[in-house]
Structures are given as C-alpha cells and as structure tokens.
C-alpha cells in the first residue's frame, strides 16, 4: 500500500493535508478550518500559553498551536469535552481582568468576546477578581487599558521580533503575571512606541488602543457582527 501524498490527519473526521513542520493549527488554517485560539497569530512564533487551541490528538490533549501534525493522526476539536474546557478557560480570563464589554470600544472586534460567543459562554461562572489596573494614557496617540489584558504576549512578540523595540514585557509569575512597559517610568510615553509599530495592531482584545477614535465603526459593521469568529480560520479584525 502506497502512502497518500501529501501527509494528512483527520480533524473531526475531515482530512487535513499538511506540509513539513506544520503544527495542527497551521494545517487546519491552511485548510480553512477554525480551531479556537487567542495567543496564536500565524504571523508570529507560537507561545502556547492560553490553551484555548487545545485539541485531542490520538486521544491525548495537546495545544494545537505547538503540536506538530503527524501523518494519520486523529484529531478531535469541536467536541463537548474540549469545548467545556475551553469555556472554563475563557471564564477564567474574564474574571481575572475587568472585561466590561458594554462600554468597551473593542466590542464587536474583540477576539476574546467573539470566542466566548462562539463557545456559548453565557456567564463568567467564577467570582470576579476585580483587579486594580490603572490605565496608561501618557502616550499622545495610544492608550493602554491593562484591565483587559489576557497576557497573550502578542504585543511582546511583535515589538521584539518585528519592530525590534522591546516596548512590552510580561512580568511576574502565575497569577501575578502582568504586562509591563519597558521604560524606567513604566509609561508608554517614555518608550519609542509608535502607531506604525506592528505591536500597535496585534492586541486581540482592547488593551492597546488608538486614542480618540473609539466607536467609529457602527454596530452591524464590526468584524464579528458580519460573521462569527469561526467563519474564518484566523480573524482579520477591523481597526486593529
């Protein structure tokens, strides 16, 4: 028996071909299939921290953004067991920060919110932490609202790997982890951050915001009003 070429695996029963060195989520995206994810962005090296992309590969749970695809692998993603866990992870993200969707300008363009809709998250379930996280409004053109940070590190990776600036960093460990700005004062105004940076446009939630333009897109025309997050393998968000 000759092996099928190219190699492939099945994702919820569907055959997904993959290329050399591809991870499960990369191959799925190339095939146009959505796997929930937050810290993964195809433009950057995977970070593997949010675990939203967890799938069952040959019966074992693994992060699909870091797990290499293997020929003949049987991958399960859209199943109750996995979706229940993803929902619980989302709920934890919601209570750890201060996510007040009704007045957030990223509402409708936010991947966290859209993923929560996708996974039928109806309530936060856990007790809110209500952390105290002051805003950084020091920069003339950009605002940082740390209340919404989910520590995906995309801005860290973008600033370091693409912009070559290292404006952002994750600090602290475990439940104490938080995003910091690499400046003596800790203020964005005291860095060389600019609106042209890649880091200004990668935040999947509403932390890194261009000032004075919030709510410019009417309801009905925002990214996830038009289609659910699952309609594209990786969302392209308006105004990001």
């Amino acid at each position, binding site marked *: 028996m000759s092996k099928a070429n190219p190699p492939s695996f099945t994702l919820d029963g569907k055959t997904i071909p993959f290329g050399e060195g591809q991870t499960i989520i990369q191959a799925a995206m190339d095939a146009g299939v959505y796997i929930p994810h937050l810290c993964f962005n195809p433009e950057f090296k995977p970070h593997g921290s949010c675990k939203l992309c967890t799938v069952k590969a040959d019966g074992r749970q693994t992060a699909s953004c870091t797990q290499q695809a293997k020929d003949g692998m049987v991958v399960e993603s859209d199943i109750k067991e996995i979706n229940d866990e993803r929902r619980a992870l989302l709920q934890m993200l919601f209570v750890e920060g201060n996510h007040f969707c009704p*007045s957030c300008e990223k509402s409708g363009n936010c991947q966290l919110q859209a993923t929560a809709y996708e996974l039928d998250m109806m309530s936060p379930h856990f007790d809110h932490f209500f952390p105290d996280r*002051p*805003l950084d409004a020091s920069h003339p053109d950009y*605002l940082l609202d740390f209340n919404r940070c989910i520590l995906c590190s995309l801005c860290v990776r973008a600033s370091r790997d693409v912009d070559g600036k290292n404006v952002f960093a994750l600090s602290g460990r475990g439940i104490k982890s938080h995003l910091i700005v690499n400046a003596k004062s800790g203020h964005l105004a005291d860095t060389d951050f600019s609106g042209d940076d890649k880091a200004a446009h990668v935040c999947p939630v509403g932390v890194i915001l261009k*000032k004075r333009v*919030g709510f410019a897109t*009417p*309801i009905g025309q925002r990214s996830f009003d038009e289609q659910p997050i699952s309609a594209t393998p990786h969302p392209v968000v308006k105004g990001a």
Partner: protein
Amino acid sequence: MSANLETAANPETLRRVAIDPVSRVEGHGKVTILLDDKNKVHQVRLHIVEFRGFEKFIQGRPYWEVPVMVQRLCGICPVSHHLAASKALDAIVGAKHLTPTAEKNRRLMHYGQILQSHALHFFHLCSPDLLFGFDSDVSQRNIVGVAAKYPETAKRGILLRKFGQEVIRHTAGKRVHGTGSVPGGVNKSLSIAERDELLKDIYQMVAWSRDAVHMVKELHHQNPELYNSFGAFRANFMSMVGFDGGMDLYHGRLRGRDENGNVLFDGVDYQNYTQLIEEEVKNWSYMKFPYLKSLGREKGWYRVGPLSRVQNCDFIPTPLAEIERREFVAYSGVMPMHAPLGYHWARMIEMLHAAEMIKDLLHDDDITGSELMTSGERGFEGVGVIEAPRGTLIHHYRVDENDLVSMCNLIVSTTHNNQAMNEAVRRVAVQYLHGHEVTEGLLNHIEVAVRAFDPCLSCATHALGKMPLEVEVLDQTGQRLSALSRGGDGTICDG
C-alpha cells in the same frame, strides 16, 4: 402646608408607614409616611437612591468611551444619556457645529427615544390607572387588563413604542445601548433602505399619537375635579427651549417661569448652569434637591418634564402638536396648569411632536448624508444638556491633557423633580390617606402621583400593579402592628 410635612415635630410619637418598591437595577424609590393614632398624616417623604457612584466610576476613563458607558445609568432612557454626554464632549473635540447629517441623525435618535419612552409610560404604566380608576380592581389594573378591555389602545401603545425603538436601532445600531453618537458627530447616517422602512409606518404613528392626545384630553375633560386637583401644587418651571423660543428637545437655551407663568430667566447658555442652579443635600435623602440660586432654597425649587416644556415654549414647531398645545394652554386659562395629572396630557402632545419631527427628518436628504464628523480646537471642559423624556438632563465633564475624564457631574431629570415629587406625594397623602386605614387602593394613589412625573426609578418600569410594595404600620416603640404586601404577581397578602 405641605412644606411642613417634610419633617414632623415629634416623630417618635408617630406610626411609620413605608411604601417600599423593591428595585433591581439602577434606582430605588421608597415613600415613608408618619401617622398618629387617628391616622392623621404628619410627615411624608419620597426617597430615591441616586447614581452618584457613576460619576466616580467615569473618572479616569477615556472621554470617547463616556457616551457609551453612561448609557448604563439607565435601562429606560439610555439614549438621553448617550446624547447628553456626546453633546458635552463635542466641546472636547472642538466640534462647535456638527455637520447637518450628524445633528439630524442625533435628533432622529432623540425623537425616537421620546416617542418610545412616552408611549411606554402612558400606555403600559399609566393607562390602567386612568382607564379603570386609581383604586379599581387590582387584578385588572395593568396592561393585560387594558389589552382585554381596550385591545386597540393596547395594540397602538405597543406598536408606537416599537416604532420608536426601531428609529433608535437604525440610528444607534441597537435598540438599547447603541453607539451611534460619538464626540464630534455620529458613526453612521440612515441608509436609504432604513429610511424607507421607517417612512412606511410614520404616518400611522403620527395619526395614533394624535389619537392618544385626544384620549388623554377626553379623560381630563370627563373628570376635571379629579384631574385638576389630584396632588396639585404650584411651582416654578424650567426647561430648555429653542433659540427662537419654540419647543426644541435637543438643543437651545434654558428658560424658567414662576408659578404664575412669568418668565424668571431666559436665554441662559447651559454651559453656565452652575450659576443658575445649586444642589442642596438633605440628611434624609440620597438624592440632592436642586434649586434656582436667585430664588434660594425655600422658593427656588422647580419642576421639569413635559408639563414644564409644553407651557414654557412659545410654540411647537410642528403643526398638529401646536394645535394641541394651544388647546392645552387655553384649557388651563390665565394661570399655568400645575396638576400632576396634566403631565399625561402634555406628554402625549410631546409624543405627537416627536412623531411629526421624525416624519420631517425622514423627508430631509441630510439624514442619509455622508459627512458624519467635525472637529476643531481641543477643549478641556464641556456641558451637554438635552430635554430627556422626563425632563432636563445635564452632563458636565472635564477632561485632562491625557484624554482621561477628571470630573463628571450629572443632574438627571428625576433629581430636578425631587422636591416637586415630594410635594405631590404629600398632597395626595393629605387628600386621600388622612384619617383612613391604609389599603392597597389608597397606596396606589401615592403611586399614581409619583408615576405622573415618570421618575426614572427602575421600579417605575415594572408593569403597573406588579410593583412589589411593602407597607408596615409600626407603633411608637417600633413594634410592628400590621403589614400589607403586594407581590410581583399583583396579589395582596397580610403579614
């Protein structure tokens, strides 16, 4: 005489009756009454918990978030807060004059809000009292009862409200808590399809609104003793009027009149409202008591809302509502109408005006225009005033150089009416409770008086007859003698 009912001389010798509508959302209202052993009324107070916490909450937030965030003050008239905040923040982005498309779309949103709110208030909340009687059978005295006996009236009420909500949806993006208005303009204008959809029904809405004015006018004519005297007291009036003196619920200058209808002040730029109004704090109420500085706290309190607006303007700039305004003014004679039940009549005149304005705006090409935003020299402080369904609404902000709000002061319509509502409740208590055993029907009289003002309490949004009420009669030592309660399903039980 009612002023001395604010505080009884010897409260410790009196029985206390509390009407305590339990609330779930943003407001909480309660009436307490002190009676002696002959059921004579000695003290009556309406307490309303207000939203001072919100003003703190807004501080430190970016200013462009505020018009959306402040809508959470209220599930009933979020659009009013949305627009008042936007107007205040127009000054921050230096938008002295909005584009015609922006201003007209904001106005359209506002008239949609007036229409839906006035329809809700009159048909859903008040018509059961007015159609069946204040102490009629409580099982019938609700919107379901109205639907059974007057199906056409109930249907119109529901459809008028729905139409207003559709206007809001098309301009704000959502029926509740939309985002249409932003500092400096709007984020969308009406599309041709949206305009045509609204145009299909607007003529029917105008006709039904006019019928509603006639209905409430008829009620007034049928029972003038009741309608003219129920809870009546004399007071000053205040509202915004257009620059030409006509009714303008969206923009203009402040005008006040005394109880005889004489102009007290006129043409006041609302940016200077702090020179006009002072807010008094009383130790028994969470809500402040505003008054006109020039008249002092004893004489300076005033009334806002439909009754003030219809009598404060020189004319209404839409023809059908203007005919009704003239009739209203002629009915009250040389003196202005002060009767709280007159609010309903005035409110329906405004609903007709809102429907006519919507019709005109839908025929205006600017409404589908594409120039949405303007800006100019950056400002650091702004006041926005709008005539919300319940009355004058003031938003005042200061914004720092980093674009964060550093100060916020809000005076909502219900606060302006605080003293006036207390007066009305005192009159009704004296007129109806004095010397009688407390019954559900008598309690409802108090509620009818409060409701006439359409106060923005969350409890006022409960369908009539479903507001949970608790009345306790206590003796001097605080011992409970008897109690009466009404559950959410309208059933009454002892104990």
